[in-house]
């Protein structure tokens, strides 16, 4: 969970930046804090950097290596799609269009960046909804698990627009794990609304 210059994992505050830090600096500081050694990060748009950083934090607390690369799915959503990057690209069109900005003018590129980083090759989809729709994301992820299209799924919300940002990701597995939370709409809502769920989720 990344919200208001703070980074949480399973309900615990891992790190916080100075209040009011602009998004680009916050993302750079978060990158230095949780990752580093991935120069392509700096070329990404804000949405991809935020989602990439949130996945970095999430997967340090999960065990994606227990799953085959082709069986890890990603189901993300947000409100503004890639509008933040679209507007930046549009501003370059008046002069010389920027190829590096153009490649980020789709919201699902953030999924690609996460998959490249971690080697995931499973199903993926990006929904655009007014607010976080826990029922929609949960039902789609559940379908992937029930139909054997995936054994694990990274789900959640990654939103960036005009410097405002919010990311809430969670990791769902088909296999049962001790202490894992049931994968229900109510629990997913709780993760998004409070960021205070203490345990990873699983299907049952």
């Amino acid at each position, binding site marked *: 969970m990344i919200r208001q210059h703070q980074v949480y994992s399973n309900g615990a505050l891992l790190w916080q930046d100075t209040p009011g830090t602009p998004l680009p600096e916050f993302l*750079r500081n978060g990158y230095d804090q949780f990752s580093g050694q991935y*120069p392509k990060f*700096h*070329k990404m748009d804000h949405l991809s950097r935020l989602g990439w950083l949130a996945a970095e934090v999430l997967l340090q607390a999960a065990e994606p290596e227990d799953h085959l690369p082709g069986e890890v799915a990603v189901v993300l959503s947000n409100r503004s799609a890639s509008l933040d990057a679209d507007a930046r690209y549009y501003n370059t069109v008046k*002069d*010389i269009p*920027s*190829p*590096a900005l153009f*490649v980020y003018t789709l919201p699902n590129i953030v999924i690609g960046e996460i998959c490249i980083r971690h080697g995931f090759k499973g199903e993926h989809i990006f929904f655009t909804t007014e607010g976080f729709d826990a029922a929609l994301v949960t039902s789609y992820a559940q379908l992937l698990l029930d139909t054997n299209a995936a054994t694990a799924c990274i789900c959640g919300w990654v939103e960036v627009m005009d410097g405002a940002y919010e990311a809430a990701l969670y990791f769902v597995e088909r296999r049962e794990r001790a202490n894992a939370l049931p994968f229900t709409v109510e629990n997913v809502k709780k993760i998004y609304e409070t960021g205070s769920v203490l345990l990873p989720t699983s299907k049952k």
Partner: protein
Amino acid sequence: MEKLMADLKSQIIAQLNLQEVKPEDIGNDQPLFKEGLGLDSIDALELIVLLQQHYNIRIANPEQGPEIFHSVRSMAEYIMAHQKQQG
């Protein structure tokens, strides 16, 4: 030529957002792509934009790309040859 290559290194870093690279990390003859600086196809397009923005050079023949963008030195040589033609 040395001044031009130094300028190019700074411009490449800024244009391609290579935040973890310093000008002195880029050798004059170091390949910019693959095993060298590790640039990719989108970076190649940004280098074309760089030539246009900073040196008013439009590359007419895309097949020249690998030769022009092999290294900082090859870029500098191309710019100087182009400026000589114009001058």
